[in-house]
């Protein structure tokens, strides 16, 4: 065996037109249908994620509006009770699983390599795969409407009502298989974020220089790797119960319906933090830009983020206070649910202090980021109230809990996302969103949201149970429900204004330039929109705010952005060490590749086969998936996965 040395000395140069031209040739996605299917560019995938997630947000929103029309008046008959069950179930499933995390994954996908100063995610093909599986699983779940059998047991789907005996239609099979399918996307996405942040940061970006948004997504990716198996397993076991008569959740033959709740909340409470921590990270990175100063207490906010996730695994039972569990268990989980407010409050105080100590510039993005704070406090405090066992026994399964979850999910997910959209839209498209329309958009959303959901606390305190189809006229819930319905429609108009703004600004918004907000992080160092290779040379980082170094005088030196490592012999990136981000390896990045799409199709075929009990079809899908992965992973010389062929 000849000894080959797999090493080379990378060039270090200043950015030049020649480098740009050569990189563009290497990195540009081919035009046409093939390029569209095969693209592995994280920016393309990120934008697809965001658009798809907004599509599901619209769908979930329309479901909500239909419910609000039904509830606007007592004894109304707008939809049938069965349709209502499907609507509230799909509304929850859509917003929580198909919108809330995917939209954050979209931002993270788009931003990770840009924030970290590299050229793509660690596994670009896996990234494309993660998107396609998300889309396929979303369509799979929504196909249930076409046959009139959408999931109808609420998003947390308690056994035994979800079992075959009480729910014989295909509704639950759609949900069970769809969630197992979607879990694959979430898991591979999380693995990709983690390896990217560990290995692909620009040289010099040690862990104390990583933007908070990256910390948020990194933290929840760990959470996802540990929590998603619980829910995938729960849904798989449910499906076995339904199809093969196993006894996991049945009350007979030694089954245990409560096991469902354990497995589900083992996943679903961490999930609540999963869908807010990256949005909190977006606020922590975006808000300081408009306060014209760095975030106060960076380290504490990072530690708070991680602590929140860790404690998030210890509060699951507060969803189960009313199930008759031992008193000691209730006390422990109640205590944990109180303690978790501490790390969350750290972030709140850091944001307030940042505004306090800064010189705020009022933009639409700032308004969204700043109003995130009171929404978070309201959602947080109503959470603390339900953390107390005696209060929860009164409040559980009432509209109070509905108000709480909406303050959490809209207040600290949607508000962060909309602020993030105003903030990063110029980077993604090269054009600014219109500010005047932006103000209309913000105030309509803000007013509509609070009008809809603040009164819900009272509706709940007055005893209205959640998920009821209608209510009698003489219980005193009518006015509050009507107000909520009006608020919901105002909120919908606000979201519509956002769409108008996006369409209008895409066409004739002001041209953004590289760094329209004068922001400090790396994504603003490249053009808007960035070229396919992101950075012509790999930058070297010397501080937390590479573009504010002249003003802040922090760190020990200057980052080098226009002069850096040139990698132009094929698609390449630099791998660095985990803690200190010292250069370690030149890694080869894959070309555009159709296999992620093909494997997704094969898997979708398999899942449809399982749904229809057409076992031959499931088998074909399974075998095709295996074959596809085998071809995908075949070691390739151009990716330096195997010894070069001898004739070279």
């Amino acid at each position, binding site marked *: 065996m000849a000894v080959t040395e797999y090493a080379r000395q990378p060039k*270090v140069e200043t950015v030049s037109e020649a480098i740009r031209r050569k990189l563009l040739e290497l990195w540009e996605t081919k035009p046409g249908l093939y390029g569209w299917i095969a693209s592995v560019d994280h920016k393309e995938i990120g934008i697809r994620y965001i658009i798809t997630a907004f599509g599901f947000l619209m769908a979930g929103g329309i479901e909500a509006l239909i419910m609000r029309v039904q509830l606007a008046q007592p004894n109304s008959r707008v939809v049938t009770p069965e349709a209502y069950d499907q609507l509230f179930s799909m509304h929850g499933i859509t917003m929580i699983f198909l919108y809330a995390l995917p939209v954050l994954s979209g931002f993270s996908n788009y931003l990770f390599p840009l924030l970290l100063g590299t050229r793509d995610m660690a596994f670009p093909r896996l990234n494309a795969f993660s998107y396609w599986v998300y889309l396929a699983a979303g369509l799979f779940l929504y196909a249930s409407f076409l046959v009139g059998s959408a999931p109808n047991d609420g998003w947390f789907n308690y056994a035994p009502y979800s079992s075959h005996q009480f729910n014989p239609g295909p509704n639950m099979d759609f949900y069970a298989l769809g969630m197992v399918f979607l879990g694959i996307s979430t898991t591979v996405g999380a*693995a990709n974020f983690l390896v990217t942040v560990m290995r692909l940061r620009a040289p010099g970006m040690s862990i104390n220089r990583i933007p908070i948004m990256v910390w948020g997504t990194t933290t929840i990716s760990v959470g996802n790797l540990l929590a998603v198996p619980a829910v995938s397993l729960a849904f798989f076991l449910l499906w076995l119960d339904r199809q093969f008569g196993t006894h996991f959740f049945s009350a007979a033959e030694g089954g245990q319906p409560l096991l469902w709740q354990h497995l589900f909340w083992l996943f679903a409470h961490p999930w609540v933090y999963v869908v807010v921590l990256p949005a909190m990270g977006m606020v922590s990175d975006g808000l300081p830009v408009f306060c014209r100063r760095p975030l106060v207490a960076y380290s504490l906010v990072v530690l708070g983020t991680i602590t929140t996730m860790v404690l998030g695994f210890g509060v699951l039972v507060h969803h189960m206070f009313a199930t008759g569990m031992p008193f000691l268990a209730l006390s422990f989980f109640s205590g944990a649910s109180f303690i978790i407010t501490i790390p969350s409050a750290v972030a709140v105080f850091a944001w307030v202090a940042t505004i306090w100590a800064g010189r705020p510039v009022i933009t639409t993005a700032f308004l969204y980021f700043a109003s995130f704070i009171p929404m978070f406090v309201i959602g947080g405090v109503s959470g603390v109230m339900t953390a107390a066992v005696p209060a929860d026994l009164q409040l559980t399964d009432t509209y109070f809990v509905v108000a709480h979850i909406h303050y959490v999910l809209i207040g600290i997910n949607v508000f962060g996302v909309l602020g993030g959209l105003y903030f990063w839209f110029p980077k993604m498209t090269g054009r600014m969103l219109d500010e005047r329309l932006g103000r209309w958009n913000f105030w309509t959303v803000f007013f509509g949201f609070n009008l809809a959901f603040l009164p819900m606390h009272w509706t709940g305190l007055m005893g209205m149970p959640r998920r009821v189809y209608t209510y009698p006229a003489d219980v005193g819930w009518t006015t509050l429900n009507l107000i909520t319905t009006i608020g919901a429609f105002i909120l919908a108009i606000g979201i519509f204004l956002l769409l108008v703004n996006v369409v209008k600004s895409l066409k004739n918004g002001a041209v953004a330039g590289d760094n329209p907000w004068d922001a400090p992080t790396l994504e603003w160092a490249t053009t808007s929109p960035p070229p396919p290779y992101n950075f012509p040379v790999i930058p070297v980082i010397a501080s937390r705010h590479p573009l504010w170094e002249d003003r802040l005088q922090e760190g020990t030196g200057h980052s080098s952005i226009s002069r850096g490592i040139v990698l132009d012999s094929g698609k390449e990136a630099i791998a660095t060490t985990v803690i200190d981000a010292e250069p370690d390896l030149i890694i080869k990045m894959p070309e555009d590749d159709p296999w992620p799409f093909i494997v997704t199709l094969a898997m979708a075929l398999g899942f449809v086969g399982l749904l229809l009990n057409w076992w031959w079809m499931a088998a074909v899908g399974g075998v095709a998936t295996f074959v596809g992965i085998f071809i995908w992973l075949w070691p390739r010389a151009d990716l330096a996965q195997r010894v070069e062929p001898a004739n070279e």
Partner: protein
Amino acid sequence: MSDVSGTVRERLTIGRLGEGNIRRRASGWWGIMMLIATEAFLFVYLLFSYYYFAVQHGRAWLPDELPEFRLSAPDTAILLLSSVAIWFGERGLRQGSRLRLLLGLAVGLVLGIAFVVIQYMEWMSKPFGISSTSYGSLYFTITGFHMAHVVAGIFILASLTLWSALGYFDRTRSSTVHIGVIYWHFVDAVWLFIFFTIYVTPRLGLG
């Protein structure tokens, strides 16, 4: 050595860098660690379900005849031996011996298949089925999940054997081998937890 930035006070100098997939430094090595982490938790939740039932229901929940070691003990030994064989092959690659690599992988592959066959016989010998009681459901689901992982591992070992035979790897370009091998070790390690849970804990008085 080339100097990246004249103004960086702690000068960052960049020397020769490794290129492409090198041993355990490839991105894929980190990727398989992520997969192993998430799959380990899948088994944690499966075993959690087992203990949950065992604690809630007590002895009556277990089958009258406790699971026996007659097939399961040799099966466990076979699986452990397969890990040893593969470790032997991987060490061979490190010393540049493709033959040792091939030998190790092939022996591991055969032992892996033997495990599946014996496990299948064990399944057939059970007087209960997956839908008889919740014990049967859990027994077959846990061992079934593990069996699925062993089958996936066998595919991986077969692929590695094929690619090694084609001369794709040397002592530096060996990431693919390390990635596949660590997955096999993981599947073996998981079995030890399952074996302990299903075959040993009933005899220690659990359930």
